[in-house]
């Protein structure tokens, strides 16, 4: 129907003077935007197929291509945005559920950007991290509240299992299947080099990556894909996925068309069969049931691995976290509503959940009030974009941060947000061999190491400025933060004073 016609979102502008019709863009674009004219002399493009991933822009040897946002739009107003109109047209035409990827793009407040960091002046002077020791190592897990001695007065040092990280940043869960083999290879190698961890997601663990086990978090979710004894033994920690920030209350569903070859092997299901992770774990209806899963995993691994429980940031998060802290979990991971995803229903992604900043502050406050903060570590994710987001999260009460979108960007993702198509031109969110090979794992690893090495320096610099020389001393130190442009209520939830106070 003509009423369904939507003018292309992006237009390809080709500088004819620079373009020598070499045809590289034709070969590079998996969306088949570019094509050669019938007489072979020119390269033309079908703008309707363009997702603005910038692959052609970046690879064109003569820099002849640019992608611009189309200015042909509906008559928008503040209520009926162009997107709202287009979404109705898409649904009226197809009867389909709107499917998107990556994090919540709506203009909700980003509280990181409304928090300012303190620095020392005169008294308690700043520390120069280039000259003086600055501790960025963190330990995730239970911290005993008392010192125990044996009958001879000697310290009993058998601590609960912990994760040791050389910096307070981990790569969060992205399954093999949602991202490529080469992307996993880069993450695993980078985590090992950096002394942190990456996370398998619910896709199992490829046999080639068992050697990175000391820097791997293995995930157990409702579908239990790829979960078996060796897998549980392989990781440094086990994460139970209860929820995901991008789609709280929604399960996962990798279509059978993507369950091919190695992806089928690591998930341990037949090729072509759907991989359905239901929204609930069907054996968990209470904190007691969660405790059972936590302890069955601990028993199976002889109490040698910390267990992480990952939840989405939702209303009542503080009470939920309090329950998890009492379930025997060693770490709680909270995923905010701006967290990424390979595919989520648009309506869920854009409307369900809460910002991780508020969730973190509420949880830390509650666990402290109940005297159980040291029973668990807190890891937060859901759009941590830079080193100051990390510093602010730690000052609000986190032990460490999960990053995924930032890691993808480091590996070459250009945030076109079409992961669900499986045609990622950058070799990340795809299983097509010809696309996967575009991502060189060594180069990906180097860029991830660069990114986090830079963040680590920045974190040390910022901590030094505050006169603080360890992450431990920054954690939950909300006096180091001030809010700007926030209401009394927001300040009270965040537990910070306003700038100037």
């Amino acid at each position, binding site marked *: 129907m003509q009423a369904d016609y939507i003018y292309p979102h992006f237009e390809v502008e080709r500088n004819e003077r620079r373009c020598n019709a070499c045809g590289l863009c034709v070969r590079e674009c998996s969306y088949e935007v570019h094509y050669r004219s019938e007489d072979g002399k020119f390269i033309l493009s079908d703008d309707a197929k363009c997702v603005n991933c910038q692959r052609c822009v970046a690879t064109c040897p003569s820099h002849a291509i640019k992608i611009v946002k189309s200015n042909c739009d509906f008559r928008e107003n503040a209520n009926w945005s162009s997107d709202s109109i287009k*979404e109705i047209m*898409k*649904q009226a*035409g*197809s*009867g*389909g*559920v*709107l*499917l*998107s990827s990556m994090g919540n793009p709506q203009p909700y407040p980003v509280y990181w950007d409304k928090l300012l960091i303190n620095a020392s002046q005169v008294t308690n002077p700043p520390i120069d991290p280039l000259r003086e020791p600055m501790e960025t190592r963190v330990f995730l897990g239970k911290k005993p509240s008392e010192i125990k001695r044996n009958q001879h007065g000697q310290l009993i040092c058998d601590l609960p299992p912990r994760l040791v990280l050389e910096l307070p940043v981990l790569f969060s869960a992205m399954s093999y299947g949602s991202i490529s083999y080469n992307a996993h290879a880069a993450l695993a190698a980078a985590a090992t080099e950096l002394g942190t961890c990456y996370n398998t997601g619910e896709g199992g663990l490829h046999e080639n990556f068992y050697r990175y086990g000391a820097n791997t978090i293995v995930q157990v979710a*409702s*579908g*239990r894909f790829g*979960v*078996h*004894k060796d897998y*549980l033994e392989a990781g440094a920690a086990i994460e139970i996925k209860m929820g995901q920030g991008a789609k709280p209350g929604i399960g996962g*569903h990798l*279509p*059978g068309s993507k369950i091919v070859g190695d992806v089928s092997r690591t998930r*341990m*299901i*037949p090729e*072509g*069969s*759907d991989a*359905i992770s*239901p929204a609930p774990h*069907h*054996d968990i209806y209470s904190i007691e049931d969660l405790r*059972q899963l936590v*302890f*069955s995993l601990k*028993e*199976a*691994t*002889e*109490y040698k691995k910390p267990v992480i429980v990952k939840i989405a940031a939702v209303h009542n998060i503080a009470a939920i976290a309090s329950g998890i802290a009492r379930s025997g979990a060693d770490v709680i991971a909270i995923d905010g509503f701006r967290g990424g995803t390979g595919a989520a229903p*648009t309506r869920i992604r854009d409307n369900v959940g809460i910002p991780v900043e508020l969730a973190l502050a509420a949880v830390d406050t509650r666990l402290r009030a109940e005297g159980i903060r040291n029973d668990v570590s807190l890891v937060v994710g859901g759009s941590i974009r830079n080193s100051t987001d990390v510093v602010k999260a730690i000052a609000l009460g986190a032990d460490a941060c999960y990053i995924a979108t930032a890691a993808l960007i480091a590996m070459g993702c250009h945030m076109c947000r*079409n992961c*669900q*198509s499986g045609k990622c031109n950058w070799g990340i969110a795809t299983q097509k061999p010809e696309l996967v090979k575009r991502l060189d794992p060594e180069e990906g690893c180097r860029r991830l190491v660069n990114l986090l090495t830079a963040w680590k320096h920045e974190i040390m610099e910022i901590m030094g400025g505050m006169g603080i020389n360890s992450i431990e001393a920054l954690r939950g130190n909300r006096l180091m933060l001030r809010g700007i442009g926030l209401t009394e209520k927001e300040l009270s939830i965040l537990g910070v004073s306003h700038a100037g106070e």
Partner: protein
Amino acid sequence: MIILNARSTDNAQLNESVRAAKGDCEIVGCIGERFIGAGLSDKTINIKGIPGNALGAYLNGAKIRVDGNAQDAVGDTMNEGEIIVNGNAGDAAGYAMRGGKIYIKGNAGYRAGIHMKEYRGKSPVIIIGGRCGSFLGEYQAGGLIVVLGLHKDGKRIVGNFPCAGMHGGKVLIRGNAEDIIFPDKVSAKRATEEDMSAAKGYIKEFCSVFSIDENEVLSSPFTIVTPDSANPYKRMYVEN
């Protein structure tokens, strides 16, 4: 056979003794100790009494025999091995199991065989001698579930909503399953000789383990339930 007394030990200590035991063991005085045999691959465990939840979770080849009832989550995410329950089992027996066998002489609770899978050479089997609760074989993606209905209390052989979301494997229900309502996306029909051939060996083994007359069990017709598609949730999405 090494005898382990479950009295005055907790879950962790008991499991440690089981792991440490050099050879097969018998646990006596079991009253609700959980996670027995979690992830175990190498021995046979006989249990006198009633083990607690998650018996044989992640079981990786070991054999467990319970002389009594078992509770919830028997054989959770089991990969290989054998669990024999000479009594009833609770909810979610065989959750996500990928291989091995679970034989339950009596009844099973809700969600038996939920999310059961199969993979390469592995194809798990659950046989329930009596009846079972609702959501039997929910999300089943592989393997075989058999319900024999040898119970005598006159209750229905299978509860509500069996095979919801099923997208692989098969369920065999003894009898014609006339009073059972199945969801749209599965087919239930009378099992043919061919359908029965793969299951018969297991049913005979079950009968011999529990001293049940196999001829009587197999003389009845069976109903076989299979999914219509390996992709039941291929709902129409529209890219946005």
